[in-house]
């Protein structure tokens, strides 16, 4: 079922890189950057075609398409790997598992990230890099100061067992809903609130239809750039090295853009005055952490206690006690 590298004229290697967001998002720009760097680094021996906006494959089918060899490269959100059989990846969805970006980097760029990627190999997938979208803020039409404020709120989430548990831990009512429907659902009141990194909230104009948001930074949203294993293993070693190098550079670029977009988006939303943004005090944050820590415990049976604790260790090494 797996396809060998597609040979073009003059033995050029074609990589179809498909993703589900717009070209002008951090991920979209990262994909374009990788195309540019990789084609240069391989002196044109590799041609990369980027298909944005789910043009070829949608969110729900792209992983199967990659496994079939219909596309070679994807950048799905990390929540997609759980249903694939790599439940360990659900750890990324755990609330407050990464106290800050430093701890996140220690995980994604260190041995834990590598170990997680190794879980994908039996699924015919090689993980190349972790790309940020950012840390999430919680929004609704009422102030969300204490965790109790979440009670009974209908909160949009993307399909994920951990996010479901997180909302339930706050006595909120999670509603699974496609990203594209969220704006209208918030506008009309089908759901009360949602969680997003600032850039997603801003590009979908959700700040126009949310009265309040709290800068909780409670969870992380990220992607993994992955390739079809058979395709990757079949590439000449020098090409693989060149692509690895290009990916490293593209990753730094994409993550910088993501951070920058989040900063700019937050500033723009604040300036618009349509949403009231609340900065948490130390005590408030502690209350949210306390309310949400049981989610870690519950997730142990799914993602593994060892994995969670190894991340605690990285946090401790960075000076955070969990």
């Amino acid at each position, binding site marked *: 079922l797996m396809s060998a590298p597609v040979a073009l004229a003059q033995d050029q290697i074609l990589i179809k890189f498909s993703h589900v967001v*717009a070209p002008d998002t951090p991920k979209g720009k990262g994909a374009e950057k990788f195309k540019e760097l990789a084609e240069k680094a391989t002196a044109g021996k590799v041609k990369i075609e980027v298909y944005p*906006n789910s043009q070829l494959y949608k969110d729900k089918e792209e992983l199967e398409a990659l496994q079939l060899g*219909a596309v070679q490269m994807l950048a799905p959100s990390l929540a997609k790997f759980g249903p694939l059989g790599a439940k360990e990846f659900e750890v990324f969805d755990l609330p407050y598992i990464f106290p800050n970006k430093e701890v996140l980097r220690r995980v994604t760029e260190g041995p834990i990230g590598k170990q997680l990627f190794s879980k994908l190999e039996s699924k015919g997938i090689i993980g190349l890099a972790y790309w940020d979208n950012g840390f999430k803020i919680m929004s609704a039409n009422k102030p969300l100061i204490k965790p109790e404020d979440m009670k009974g709120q209908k909160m949009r989430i993307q399909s994920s067992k951990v996010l479901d548990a997180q909302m339930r831990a706050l006595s909120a009512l999670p509603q699974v809903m496609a990203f594209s429907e969220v704006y209208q659902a918030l506008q009309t009141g089908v759901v009360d609130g949602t969680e997003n990194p600032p850039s997603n909230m801003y590009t979908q104009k959700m700040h126009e239809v949310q009265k309040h948001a709290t800068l909780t930074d409670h969870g992380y949203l990220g992607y993994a750039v992955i390739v079809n294993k058979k395709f990757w293993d079949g590439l000449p070693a020098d090409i693989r090295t060149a692509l690895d190098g290009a990916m490293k550079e593209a990753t730094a670029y994409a993550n910088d853009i993501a951070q920058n977009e989040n900063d700019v988006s937050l500033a723009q939303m604040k300036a618009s005055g349509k949403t009231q943004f609340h900065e948490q005090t130390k005590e408030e944050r502690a209350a949210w952490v306390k309310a949400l820590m049981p989610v870690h415990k519950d997730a142990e049976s799914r993602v593994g206690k060892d994995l969670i604790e190894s991340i605690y260790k990285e946090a401790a090494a960075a000076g955070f006690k969990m």
Partner: protein
Amino acid sequence: MNAAIIFGLLLALMLTGMPISISLGLTVLSFLFFLTNVPIDAVALKLFTGIEKFEIMAIPFFILAGNFLTHGGVARRMINFATAMVGHWHGGLGLAGVMACALFAAVSGSSPATVVAIGSIILPAMVAQGFPKNFGAGIVTTSGALGILIPPSIVMVMYCVATTGHPQAPSIGQMFIAGVVPGIMLATLLGFTTWYRARKFGYPRLPKASGAQRIKALRESFWGLLLIVVVMGGIYSGIFTPTEAAAMAAVYAFIVAVFIYKDMPLSRVPKVLLDSASMSAMLLYIITNAVLFSFLMTSEQIPQNMAAWILDQNMGVWVFLLVVNILLLAAGNFMEPSSIVLIMAPILFPVAMKLGIDPVHFGILIIVNMEVGMCHPPVGLNLYVASGITKMGITELTVAVWPWLLTMLIFLGMVTYIPAITLWFPRLLGFM
């Protein structure tokens, strides 16, 4: 070149009379098999995931709701209400037919269903009152087309499905809200044509209903009319997403038909379920294959290249829209709306967006085109349905519909070149 092969093959297969869904699927299979490196297993995946989307599920729900209403006595009560309101004007029962079609269109998502529901009751009544058969047939065939313009509308859902993935793709809610004003406008125009011709030929009018009679008719049709509130009110106020509203409409219509109006015995419910499932499956099967087809086109970069080519022609918005209308009217000669929208929209939409046309305006103009297509031969579902009810031949019917069809064409021109007709209302409500 590839574009020519793909369209040539599709056209050849379609003209053999095989189901459109099969011609789409076979075109994709043969092309993938002989001419590309796309692994053919992707087809099996797409055949499942092509319809794996919650928005699409509005279609079976609306069909189910519509079937409960058609089989129940909702249509008859709407006709009585309409008759009490406008029956005393020129056109009498005919005018009431237009209004009843518009009312029924507001609870049903399909045009042929509207023709059946209203036509099978009002046409015999009109003949009994001394109207020529072709007058009533013309009214119902064309007014029934309001079924897809006045929300809810299955073809609007199809349009949203066909444009999914494009960053400017409209939402079902936006399309529904945008259909309200054009729908009322077209109903008014069709009503005017009816009134004018009835006055000219001196057709019978009814005695004016008293206030009490009107209130009685309103009260009796109340439960049916309330569905309009459930669907549109529900979507607009945010109680439901469009798909949820459709499911609620189905449950509501079931309760009204079986328990409130008691027009349908419980024993007939399984048959209604089966018919609705079968009709939905047929549409979903077309969608699946059309999604497959548009996947093939995207892989071959055909819409992108076609968009570039059309933009190179520098034809401008005015000419482009004219071309779109001609193309769609031509397609309306051979295919039914769902297939046309699913095949043409993915190609035309990107160009329209590049030309700066509003996605919702473009959608409504496509819908009005589809309405026209349903009312003229050789292929026109409404015409067939009306012919089934009236036992009139298609040629005879074609002559009968022309005054109203002409009205629709004039309206099509207005919708095409006056975007405000479409966009004013959704903008007023802050929906776009």
